[in-house]
């Protein structure tokens, strides 16, 4: 039995070594060509790429330190409203440069979004695959927890977690991850239930391939397209919820320049200094537009079943 498994896995990796990369490369080229052909997808991808670039190069491109205050720059208007080149997008009530804060805010938003989605998709997918493939009591326990969570407003769940963990970056990551992992668990479980009865999985089982290998090698790859689509669309949710919680004062704490924090700071100055609201608002809005455009395109391309929604 053992030797059979060894030859099998050897054969597997050999075939993977020869055939797979070629196929993958052509596949990704196909998708890239398709992406370039789609105005919607391309716009989304470009916006998102721009935001990622801004986040990575923030220390270089930001003209000022994000939290350095200046008495002279207090309430400085943006350039187009009679301001100076020193603060192109104006400054806030403490004289902090809005452009620099918005740029650094991109780091916070995107890093939280990617970390949360990565952990939630990984945890959710693995638990969902185990639940679906192993079945029985494991399935019941995992899915009851997921059901329980889904019968509860996400934001309330996140709120309760923030109340307990106290505000901060990593509490936010935990709270948001806890709030959405169940979506992916459900999705992968459904996929696992479908796939586990198919012949190639039965065949793999018959020759003694381990459960872990079947889950890793067969079930998860099959669920991947749907996971990518859902995960991408959820990036927008994470970004919005992070901003909302930070806005409420329960997420990222000042003076860290999260967009939500900036919008909260700006609330008291809506009348006099609307630019404090406008620029972080635009950044937040554009990021979500980019994510949604890309997500919509991915859904149309990868997962025609979901395209209608």
């Amino acid at each position, binding site marked *: 039995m053992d030797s059979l498994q060894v030859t099998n896995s050897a054969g597997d990796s050999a075939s993977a070594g020869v055939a797979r990369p070629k196929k993958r490369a052509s596949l990704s080229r196909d998708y890239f060509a398709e992406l370039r052909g789609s105005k919607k997808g391309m716009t989304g991808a470009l916006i998102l790429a721009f935001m990622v670039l801004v986040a990575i190069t923030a220390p270089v491109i930001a003209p000022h330190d994000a939290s350095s205050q200046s008495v002279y720059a207090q309430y400085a208007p943006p350039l187009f409203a009679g301001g100076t080149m020193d603060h192109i997008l104006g400054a806030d009530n403490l004289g902090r440069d809005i452009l620099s804060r918005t740029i650094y805010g991109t780091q916070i938003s995107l890093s939280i979004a990617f970390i949360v989605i990565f952990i939630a998709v990984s945890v959710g997918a693995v638990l969902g695959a185990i639940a679906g493939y192993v079945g029985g009591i494991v399935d019941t326990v995992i899915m009851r927890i997921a059901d329980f969570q889904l019968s509860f407003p996400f*934001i309330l769940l996140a709120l309760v977690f923030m109340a307990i963990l106290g505000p901060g970056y990593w509490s936010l990551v935990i709270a948001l991850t806890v709030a959405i992992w169940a979506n992916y668990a459900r999705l992968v479980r459904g996929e696992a239930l479908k796939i586990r009865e198919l012949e190639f999985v039965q065949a793999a089982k018959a020759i003694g391939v381990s459960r872990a290998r079947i889950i890793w090698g067969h079930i998860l790859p099959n669920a991947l397209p749907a996971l990518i689509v859902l995960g991408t669309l959820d990036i927008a949710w994470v970004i919005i919820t992070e901003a909302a919680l930070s806005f409420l004062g329960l997420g990222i704490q000042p003076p860290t320049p999260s967009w939500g924090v900036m919008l909260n700071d700006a609330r008291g100055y809506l009348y006099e200094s609307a630019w404090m609201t406008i620029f972080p608002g635009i950044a937040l809005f554009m990021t979500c537009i980019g994510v949604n455009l890309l997500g919509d395109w991915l859904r149309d391309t990868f997962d025609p079943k979901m395209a209608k929604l």
Partner: protein
Amino acid sequence: MGGFVFRRVLYSLIVVLCVLFIVSLLVRIIPGDPVDVMMAGNPGMTEQDKEQIRQQLGLKDPVLVQFEKYIVGVVHGDLGSSLRFRTPNLGLISTRLPATLELTLFSMLIAVIIAVPLGIITALKQDSAVDYGGSVFALIGISTPNFLLGIILILVFAVEFKVFPASGQADPLYVAIGKAVTGQGLGSLGDSLRHLVLPSVALGMAVAAANVRMIRSSMLDVIRTDYIRFAKAKGLPGRVVFAKHAFRNALIPTVTVLGLQLGQLLGGTFVIETVFAWPGIGRLAVQAIFWRDYPLIQAVVLVTAIMFVTINLLVDIIYHWIDPRIRYD
């Protein structure tokens, strides 16, 4: 049907119990003791006094004992007392609940009023400028965080044009309607509605946008079916085909998600009520978190969970009633 409803109700009760248990458990592990928070303004308190208060409040009991006491209280309509207000939570919540419900339902109304015509028109005029505009609207609606939209609405309609008030609630809607009905003038009703417009639009827009997409695509599906083609082929006027056949069937998917969306809106009130200083339970919850008023947090979470679970329960039962093929096993 009876068995299904019974099982479903039982399941909902279990969910509520789990929520209760988890929240009361989590609240215990929070760093920072409620008594310290309560007594923050009293420097004269000795450690001994605090200890005595902890005894009185039952904070010294084992978790399970506290939980049991809490459950017994809840069953008797006692949701504990707020540390900050020193009054029963039930009273605090019930005075603010109508404001939240009013806001949620009105947002749903706005979402439907916007989405139904727009969804239908974009489908009927597929690939036209109207359709394109509708898609852009939907994309923008989905991508705008509700609190950001709220701020923008305040900026435009309250600060710039001064057509709607920026925050707060006038008379509760049911009071205003009462006044209008009993002939005390429409002024109060108008004022209530004016206060309601901005927060409801801010809260309902995302749902409206999602519904536009859904109605459009289900309308397109329906238009392409054989029975519509047949209805047209036999010479029915377009208006009749639309009203009798297409429209009603196209709305089914939307109607089935309205319940879920109601839950989504309920969640959104936590943020929107804070933006608009709306005196509902969402704002109360956020304030309670700041005040570390754990009994109040617990009570608000419990009430919200009950509402959410009840909505889901009703939706499931209605589905089951509409379409008996749907089974939950």
